[in-house]
């Protein structure tokens, strides 16, 4: 905190400009002039004020610990600042430990040159403060700290922060980002999430870049200041949402702006109508005094405003979104306009770029308002705490994306930046002060009117629309001079807008800034039943063009858009540099600026290539030129707008036409940047990608190439052209290596084909080859992939082995997917010729045999399967055999010779070879198989092996497959997979394990007559399962021992051990039986929901036949634990104390009955839905809102909920 105080006072602006800012990280000199802005909350009481400190001149080395200092800084202010300031500062001090000197807004700031210095000084704090604010918030609890840490890292992304950085105040930036984030959380419900993400994002965003920037940004010019200021507004914007509660707050912010712009003027005096004041006052108790500005600051402020404008687009965006919630906006905006415009005029002389600034002004004003409110409301802080944890989670995903996006914006930003630079000159605009109705000037009745209107709104969109209409009305009233005279209380409510379209259209259009248009396009979709404003039609056209750009830049999702705003800022540096280099408009500052910026840019470590840099500069200059003529028009237009809104709209059309040129430029730029970046941005919506542009022609000549998932844009040098791919395919076909190698090769071929968008017979051939190989290796997933691709390719009319594969398809559907509808549709889609094809006929015959259970026919067909049909049938053989055995054991009596079974069930390959040795082999195999499945064999008089059908009927079972894997997906078992692919096909059941089969099934445990049940008392009981390959473990702890017939309450379950163990100190809820099959992938998190699982305690005698009971050692009376003897395939119960062992009479150890299916547990979780890193699907529909997209994630609360799907 003390550090703040240390800052030296810097009176004039000029020095600021020259000052070099250092990175925060350096303890060394900090920017001299740090102005401290604290926004004290309305009432001095507990509210936390925000300190925004901008670090400037290095002379005053303020080492700034954002978190620490807050209170101290306040102290500093008091000292350095003039009386008014002092008062404020004191306020801040008193308020909270983290008090800040109130920024101009609430408390009046008289900015004297001297004070100015203080200001600056204070600024650094302020920036820090942003962090500080958080810190302040944090003070109460540690929870906040994460945020603070973020702050330090500095967010590149944060628009404000970026600009700030340039200025040299790195520290502030992060703080800002975080702070804003923070605020947003507080203020915005629902809609705000997007913002949060973006911001949090920012926080996360690479700290490296920031650091670099800080180091590089040695020469800090006035610009940075301005930017800082800009940041403020941005900040405010974010805070806006809270505004809804306090309409007044918004006004106060505007006031600040106003104050800033008029240099040296004391606001109150200069401005005639202080309508806003009332609101103001209410908010800021302490700041009754009229806001004064320090002359030196004025410039800066102006700059800020401009800078803000530049940044504006992004900000506006956010505002728009937010806007819906906040009511007060319209009024505020109006007031701001006039003021803003004035500064712009001043700037004209200096800047060619002016237009952009003008445009942005409206937006800015809006932004400001919200900010104040945000600061004002204390509530936010507490709320933020809660949300904090969420953001970090989400943020990481975004962080990756952000830096890249920044680049895109650069082109757009360029034009605007120069304006700031020029602005730094001290401008004296009396007009500005006079013209603007500030927030204060808005009468109370008007505010009431606004709230009345807004209260009718049913949703955010409407509110936003309403807001814009209010804006118009106030504007008009102001222009007519009736703002104060009109009786707002009796004014009729305007018709309720139906949707946003109109409003966004009007507000943004009026502004004419390209950016503003950018912000609008998305929301425009909705309908609006309110009267149409004429301008819309033509404007929309323009907006569409802009919308195009915007859509390219900002992905369609809201959160992303918000992120987009931050990117814009990120690009500032570049654009500025470009301008400074190319346009020699401000020679004095240019040099420093240029060097500064270039350094920054270099330091930024972002991947901007030289080329891109050139491009940006080019566009920047182009846009700058294009802007200048427009600028004037717009200004005219603006001035007239207040007289006649309709006229203005007409003019806006004209200007918009001009701006089309701009738009096209930007479009091109956007596309080019898109091309280079789409790949890297995982989150960019697929629809936005221009795939044609991504198609490449490969040049790689290597025939052999392994598969590697693409993580970036494909490089032509690493992609093989078609002729090489053909060779590669031939190589794979003739290769002697195993399937894994071939699969890898084929996948890389497929990748190369896809990347080059080659879809011809070669493609078909590759997929066919791969599908066949996959079939042979039993790699069903891979086969399915190929199959679906082939279906598509065939549908395009590309020739291939269509019949063969339609047969495969049929088999696959009927044997493996078991989806009747699919089967029907694929059967229905067969053509007449297809049905004549041998393979298809065969497949249909197989279908018939499966349907009627005709196993004899099935195995006959199996033997004479054409093509690779047998491979697919292979995968079904086991099941078919088992079914057949079950059927036979039920229907045959008394015995059936093994030989016959072997023949029927296809163990004998008589058809192909027919020699005796083979037959013996087959017999032996059959015998093994039968034994493995629990059939009871016996020899009859003649020595022929017979199956005792009656005995077998009760003992038959499906052994747990050898290759069972945790996920129920055999292809995940690496060992076995390798073995299979090398040709050693292990038949499941070759080696049978003596264990219970495990499955998602039922838990039902018998409660045996325990000898020591009585003693159990409060002993904890734990039930476990044993299973050789059990994918999961479940163990329970019972709060107390259950009584017979009672359902125990289960307390805990553990998941995920592949081997189930019994715990020593738990009473085992034996006998545990696990039956049924591992079904879905969900089984890997085979979770027992304690709430939903019914645990049945069965009487011992009812289940004694099928379940073993808990056993106790006959010698030492300890519990016996299951123990398996793998070689003999028997299950024992062994004592762990002594040597005692006994053979179990039943293999069933555990049964788990899950009575719900995971698919039905549907929840709607807002925040998860916006996480871009989660896999998404469009195959389900939300039952609540009908939204068509959902994300997958595993829901972990209590650890026990199964994976669930959340719908967005």
């Amino acid at each position, binding site marked *: 905190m003390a550090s703040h105080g240390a800052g030296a006072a810097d009176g004039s602006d000029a020095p600021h400009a020259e000052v070099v800012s250092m990175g925060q990280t350096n303890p060394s000199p900090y920017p001299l002039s740090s102005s401290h802005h604290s926004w004290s909350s309305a009432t001095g009481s507990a509210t936390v004020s925000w300190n925004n400190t901008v670090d400037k001149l290095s002379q005053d080395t303020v080492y700034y610990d954002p978190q620490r200092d807050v209170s101290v800084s306040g102290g500093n202010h008091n000292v350095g600042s003039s009386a008014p300031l002092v008062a404020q500062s004191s306020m801040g001090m008193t308020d909270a430990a983290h008090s800040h000197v109130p920024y101009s807004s609430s408390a009046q700031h008289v900015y004297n040159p001297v004070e100015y210095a203080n200001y600056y000084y204070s600024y650094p704090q302020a920036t820090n403060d942003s962090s500080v604010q958080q810190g302040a918030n944090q003070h109460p609890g540690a929870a906040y700290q994460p945020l603070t840490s973020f702050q330090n890292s500095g967010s590149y992304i944060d628009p404000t922060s970026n600009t700030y950085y340039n200025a040299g105040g790195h520290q502030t930036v992060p703080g800002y980002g975080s702070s804003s984030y923070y605020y947003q959380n507080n203020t915005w419900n629902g809609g705000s999430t997007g913002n949060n993400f973006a911001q949090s994002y920012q926080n996360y965003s690479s700290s490296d870049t920031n650091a670099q920037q800080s180091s590089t940004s040695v020469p800090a010019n006035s610009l940075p200041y301005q930017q800082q200021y800009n940041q403020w507004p941005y900040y405010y914007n974010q805070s806006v949402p809270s505004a809804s509660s306090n309409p007044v707050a918004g006004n106060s912010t505007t006031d600040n702006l106003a104050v800033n712009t008029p240099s040296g003027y004391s606001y109150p005096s200069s401005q005639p109508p202080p309508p806003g004041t009332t609101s103001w006052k209410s908010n800021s108790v302490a700041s009754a005094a009229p806001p004064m500005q320090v002359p030196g600051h004025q410039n800066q402020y102006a700059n800020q405003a401009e800078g803000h404008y530049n940044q504006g687009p992004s900000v506006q965006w956010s505002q728009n979104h937010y806007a819906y919630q906040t009511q007060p906006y319209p009024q505020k905006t109006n007031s701001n306009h006039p003021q803003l415009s004035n500064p712009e005029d001043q700037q004209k002389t200096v800047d060619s770029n002016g237009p952009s600034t003008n445009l942005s002004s409206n937006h800015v004003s809006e932004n400001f308002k919200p900010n104040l409110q945000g600061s004002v409301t204390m509530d936010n802080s507490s709320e933020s705490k809660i949300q904090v944890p969420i953001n970090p989670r989400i943020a990481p995903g975004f962080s990756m994306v952000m830096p890249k996006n920044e680049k895109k914006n650069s082109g757009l930003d360029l034009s605007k930046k120069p304006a700031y630079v020029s602005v730094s000159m001290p401008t004296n605009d009396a007009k500005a002060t006079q013209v603007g109705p500030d927030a204060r000037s808005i009468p109370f009745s008007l505010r009431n009117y606004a709230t009345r209107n807004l209260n009718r709104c049913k949703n955010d969109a409407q509110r936003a629309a309403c807001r814009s209409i209010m804006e118009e009305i106030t504007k008009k009233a102001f222009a007519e001079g009736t703002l104060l005279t009109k009786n707002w209380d009796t004014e009729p409510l305007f018709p309720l807008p139906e949707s946003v379209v109109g409003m966004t259209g009007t507000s943004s259009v009026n502004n004419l800034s390209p950016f503003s248009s950018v912000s609008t396009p998305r929301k425009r979709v909705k*309908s*609006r039943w309110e009267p149409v404003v004429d301008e819309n039609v033509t404007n929309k056209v323009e907006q569409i063009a802009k919308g195009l750009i915007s859509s390219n830049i900002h992905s369609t999702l809201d959160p992303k858009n918000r992120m987009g705003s931050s990117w814009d800022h990120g690009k500032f540096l570049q654009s500025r540099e470009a301008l400074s280099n190319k346009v020699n408009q401000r020679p004095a500052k240019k040099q420093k600026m240029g060097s500064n910026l270039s350094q920054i840019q270099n330091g930024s470590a972002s991947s901007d290539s030289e080329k891109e840099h050139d491009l940006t500069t080019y566009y920047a200059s182009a846009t700058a030129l294009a802007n200048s003529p427009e600028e004037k028009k717009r200004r005219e237009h603006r001035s007239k707008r207040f007289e006649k809104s309709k006229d203005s709209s007409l003019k806006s059309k004209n200007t918009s036409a001009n701006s089309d040129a701009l738009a096209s430029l930007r479009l091109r730029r956007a596309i080019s940047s898109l091309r280079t970046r789409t790949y890297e941005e995982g989150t960019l919506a697929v629809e936005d990608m221009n795939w044609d542009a991504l198609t490449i022609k490969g040049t790689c000549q290597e025939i052999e190439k392994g598969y590697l998932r693409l993580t970036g844009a494909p490089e032509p040098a690493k992609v093989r052209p078609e002729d090489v791919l053909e060779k590669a395919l031939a190589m794979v076909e003739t290769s002697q290596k195993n399937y894994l190698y071939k699969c890898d090769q084929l996948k890389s071929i497929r990748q190369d084909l896809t990347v080059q968008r080659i879809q011809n017979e070669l493609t078909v051939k590759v997929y066919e080859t791969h599908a066949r190989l996959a079939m042979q290796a039993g790699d069903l997933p891979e086969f399915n992939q190929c199959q679906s691709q082939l279906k598509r390719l065939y549908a395009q009319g590309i020739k291939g082995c269509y019949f063969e594969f339609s047969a495969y398809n049929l088999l696959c559907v009927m044997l493996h997917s078991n989806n009747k*509808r699919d089967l029907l549709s694929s059967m229905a889609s067969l053509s007449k010729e297809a049905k004549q094809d041998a393979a298809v006929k065969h497949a249909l015959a197989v279908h018939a045999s499966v349907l009627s259970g005709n196993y004899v026919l099935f195995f006959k067909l199996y033997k004479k399967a054409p093509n690779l049909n047998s491979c697919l049938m292979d995968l079904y053989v086991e099941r078919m055999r088992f079914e057949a055995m079950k059927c036979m054991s039920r229907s*045959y*009596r008394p015995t059936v010779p093994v030989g016959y079974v072997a023949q029927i069930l296809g163990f004998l390959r008589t058809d192909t070879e027919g020699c005796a040795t083979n037959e013996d082999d087959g017999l032996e195999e059959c015998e093994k198989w039968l034994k493995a499945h629990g059939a009871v064999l016996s020899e009859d008089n003649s020595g022929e092996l017979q199956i005792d059908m009656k005995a077998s009927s009760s003992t038959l079972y499906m052994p747990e497959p050898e290759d069972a894997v945790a996920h129920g997906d055999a292809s995940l078992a690496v060992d076995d997979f390798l073995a299979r692919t090398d040709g050693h096909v292990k038949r499941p059941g070759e080696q049978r394990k003596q264990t219970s089969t495990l499955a998602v099934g039922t838990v039902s445990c018998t409660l045996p007559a325990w000898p020591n049940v009585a003693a159990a008392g409060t002993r904890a009981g734990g039930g476990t399962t044993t299973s050789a390959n059990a994918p999961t473990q479940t163990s329970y702890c019972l709060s107390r021992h259950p009584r017979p017939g009672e359902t125990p309450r289960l307390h805990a379950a553990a998941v995920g051990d592949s081997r189930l163990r019994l715990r020593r100190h738990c009473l085992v809820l034996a006998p545990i039986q696990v039956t049924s099959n591992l079904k879905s992938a969900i089984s890997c998190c085979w979770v027992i929901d304690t709430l939903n699982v019914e645990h049945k305690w069965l009487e011992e005698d009812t289940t004694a036949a099928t379940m073993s009971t808990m056993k106790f050692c006959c010698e030492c009376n300890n519990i016996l634990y299951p123990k398996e003897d793998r070689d003999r395939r028997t299950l024992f119960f062994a004592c762990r104390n002594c040597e005692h062992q006994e053979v179990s009479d039943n293999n069933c150890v555990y049964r788990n009955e899950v009575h719900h299916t995971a698919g039905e547990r549907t929840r709607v979780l807002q925040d998860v839905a916006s996480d871009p890193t989660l896999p998404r699907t469009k195959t389900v529909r939300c039952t609540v809102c009908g939204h068509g997209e959902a994300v997958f994630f595993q829901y972990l609360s209590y650890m026990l909920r199964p994976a669930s799907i959340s719908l967005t």
Partner: protein
Amino acid sequence: MAAYLSMGEAHRRIGDYLSRVTNAISYSDGAALASLLSVSSAPASTPLSDALAAFPDFPRLAGDRFPHLADFLVPLLRAIHSHSIQRFADAYSSFEKASNAFLQEFRNWETPWAMEAMHTVALEIRLIAEKADRELATNGKNPDKLQAAGSFLMKVFGTLAVKGPKRIGALYVSCQLFKIYFRLGTVNLCRSVIRSIETARNFDFEDFPVKDKVTYMYYTGRLEVFNENFLVADQKLTYALMHCNPQSQSNLRRILKFLIPVKLSIGVLPKRTLLERYNLLEYADVVTALKRGDLRLLRQALDKHEDQFLKSGVYLVLEKLELKVYQRLVKKIHIIQRQKEPAKAHQIKLDVVVRALKWLEIDMDVDEVECIMACLIYKNLIKGYFAHKSKVLVLSKQDPFPKLNGKPV
């Protein structure tokens, strides 16, 4: 009728239409609004469509006259116009826009006065989407309009399927959704709709309008046929049949088309007169085959109407009847044998069955027939056992051919 229309007349007609729409809205006249919104059911040439053709500047007219309704009226007029000049894809996109605007507004109306209009919109959007898809398909474009209509209707459904008076209209929309999903073959999407209809505790299913209930039951019954839940399917389809308006023959026929196979598979055979009355003679042979145990006839019938059965989705159900035909055959043999030599009535030689099948020109070897017998026993169609050594099927003395009694095979 391309009669010449003066500008003024066209202007008047359009204005008239617009004012009728706006009046309907302002007077909350749902029926009137509904009739005004039926775009696709209007004849190709109406006074309005002619007027629209003659007065191409109609969007501006609508926008100027009723600016607050412009979002709804302008695309609506466009849709009517495009539809009348047979440009269905355009008509669809315009109509969807109008529908969205309408839905938006509909949400804000607290009473369900516009339910009829909403239903008209739901129906129209489906019909236009179907036409649009046909048009797109013939132009070689991707026909995705019906899908879009589906997602729009889902939105509508979401709006209606809430507590409150609007819920009563939800079933109609869900039926439209079913129609779309069945047409698109994405029946799995029906599930969410069904769930929200059937799990609702605050609204009794019986409170929905009868016509919607019948339609709903028909579609859900069909779904159960796909899932081979014959008992539930029987229940639902029977409900639909009982409540269906007896005058609407085609609807009855549709229901029977699925109900008959379901009934067949649970062992209930229809009378021939029924089949004749509803022109469902494709099932006649199947029924005869079941009665006679004539496997050949069954296969022929399936073969003959394969396309039809596949299309309607009952093919697999009918195919499964094969086992029952076998059972019938064995039963007949059993009856004959009992008359011939009552002592051995319960022992049927496999040989006999094989010969019978031969006579039916079914080419099966002994093993296969034996397998079929085993299956019959296994599936409880025959009580008894098979002696492999002597190749004899031994029937149980009592009730060797148990009746299904509603149990599916």
